[in-house]
């Protein structure tokens, strides 16, 4: 049985349809990359999966319908890293990550909670600024704090909305390989919205391409990332190379039927 199963998920903000009939399944240990152009519905889908938004359709978590689950129950199962980081409060990094323990703790903070926080901090390589204020961090540092918080939450499903957008090259691959490793070692199901196709291809087991709220394609990176698919999704011409079994997309210029400015 898949850990996360979405069937016919649709959502509209008032009368604007943003998601239309999106379905997928995700097993424990798998990383699913959500890709697609801006405004294709990636963030909305992630919010629906955490039931921050109430979509039409059926989302099952470990076989149970999410509609029948309470907020705290969902919080123990799913951790979410938002795109535009909150965490601008004046609390310390340690306390921000400790917040991830909220679904588990009663009132006082146990040794186990502190242990989980320390562990998450060291996994993300941010132990050394544990006592700094979160609002004094750089964008990339803060992004890693949020990922650490989600890991400290000890959930079986991780939802990440562009977790690497503010990171430098090195931190990008470190965070993505950490996510892939955690998925494998702890049997997590990871859903990550990613703009960088090559990063997605390298670290995600499967990809789901969204365009205009619909599923344009789904499958393994090598089966999915073709010239035709890149053209269909983004309206650009690209060369897709093979780098040791992983597709590598080099964008060239907008397709002829598109009036975009030429990319050099």
């Amino acid at each position, binding site marked *: 049985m898949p850990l996360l199963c979405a069937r016919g998920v649709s959502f509209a903000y008032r009368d604007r349809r943003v998601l239309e009939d999106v379905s997928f399944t995700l097993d424990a240990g798998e990383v699913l990359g959500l890709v697609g152009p801006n405004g294709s519905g990636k963030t909305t889908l992630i919010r629906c999966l955490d039931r921050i938004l109430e979509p039409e359709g059926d989302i099952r978590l470990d076989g149970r319908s999410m509609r029948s689950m309470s907020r705290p129950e969902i919080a123990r199962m799913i951790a979410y890293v938002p795109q535009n980081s909150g965490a601008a*409060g004046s609390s310390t990094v340690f*306390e921000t990550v400790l917040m991830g323990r*909220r679904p588990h703790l009663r009132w006082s903070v146990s040794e186990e909670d502190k242990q989980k926080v*320390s562990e998450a901090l060291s996994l993300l390589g941010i132990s050394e600024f544990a*006592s700094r204020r979160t609002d004094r961090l750089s964008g990339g540092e803060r992004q890693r704090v949020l990922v650490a918080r989600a890991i400290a*939450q000890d959930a079986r499903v991780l939802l990440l909305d562009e977790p690497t957008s503010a990171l430098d090259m090195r931190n990008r691959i470190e965070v993505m390989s950490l996510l892939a490793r955690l998925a494998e070692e702890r049997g997590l199901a990871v859903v990550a919205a990613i703009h960088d196709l090559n990063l997605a291809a390298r670290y995600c087991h499967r990809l789901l391409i969204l365009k205009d709220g619909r599923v344009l394609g789904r499958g393994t990176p090598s089966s999915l990332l073709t010239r035709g698919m890149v053209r269909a999704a983004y309206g650009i011409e690209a060369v897709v190379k093979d780098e040791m079994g992983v597709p590598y997309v080099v964008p060239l210029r907008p397709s002829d039927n598109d009036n975009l400015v030429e990319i050099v």
Partner: protein
Amino acid sequence: MMTDTGRQEYARLTEKRALFITALIVILIALAGVAVTLGSADLSVADSYLAIFAGLFPDAVDLPDRMVESNAVGIIWGWRLHRVLFAVVAGFGLAIAGSVMQGVLRNPLASPFTLGIASAASCGASIAIILGAGVLSGSLLVIGNAFLFAMLAAAAIYGMARLRGMGSETMILAGIALMYLFSAVTSLLQYLGTAAKVQEVVFWMFGSLDKSSWPKLGIVTVVVAAVVPLLLWRAWDLNALAEGDETAASLGVPVERSMAGFMLAASLVTAVIICFTGTIGFIGLVAPHITRMVIGTDHRTLIPASGLVGAVLLLGADCLARTLIPGAIIPVGIMTAFLGIPFFLYLFMRRRDA
């Protein structure tokens, strides 16, 4: 193994918080001890305390004749003691209301005053004083109206919080709009009222502890004592809400429901205090800020600590108000504003630096 500095720092922070709260309790007790000896009646420090004990244990204390003649027990118990305790409870209540509102709305400028609750109470009081119209009669007319209007404003804010997708900025803007609306009504009434009535309204709006009494202290204490444990119990929800609505939801907080509940609790505490005292500004704004600067934002300690800071501030302001000009009592609302405005400016300066 590498030393875990994060955990050590957290342990140190926890210690610092406990220390801060303990220190505040000590300061508050000391200040209250001084406050009961202050006043226009000519009572020495020793006589003041003797009178307190004489009131508690009438049989055990043998009062000297001069104290019986000067009615020392009556002065202390009838005038000073409840006023001092009222300052403590009111300061505590206004400060926790402020810290809850700032936490929920994630805005350092949120307070019962910027959200229009205080100006609604003033408006209700003005209607009672100038038009003589209200829900209750007699000595409760003004109090009843002030409370009712404050809760009306609170209900409006509660209603807005229950609306899905109402952001905190929108709520603050709506609160400020409410504030102007009620102020306009109050101004209109003042324009229409007679000079004597207008003076009464103005005096009500200054905010003072002159009208404190044991029954009023009782009511305020019951409300504050009922609300504080609830707030402490849900302190983690406040911590999560401070990180943003989406994050709070993903951490298992029922966002709309708890926002509304917090706002209602904070409004209730504010309303029940200011209907007796009039507008006492800046405690709700300043106390949480001071506290946050010292011990950070964990509401499990922020709430009680800012309550204590508020109590110390209000009691201290009242002591100053009673002694600064011999023979006269400056309304404490004016004193807190004198303390508050320089701090307000300081905050703005700091924000520009950052």
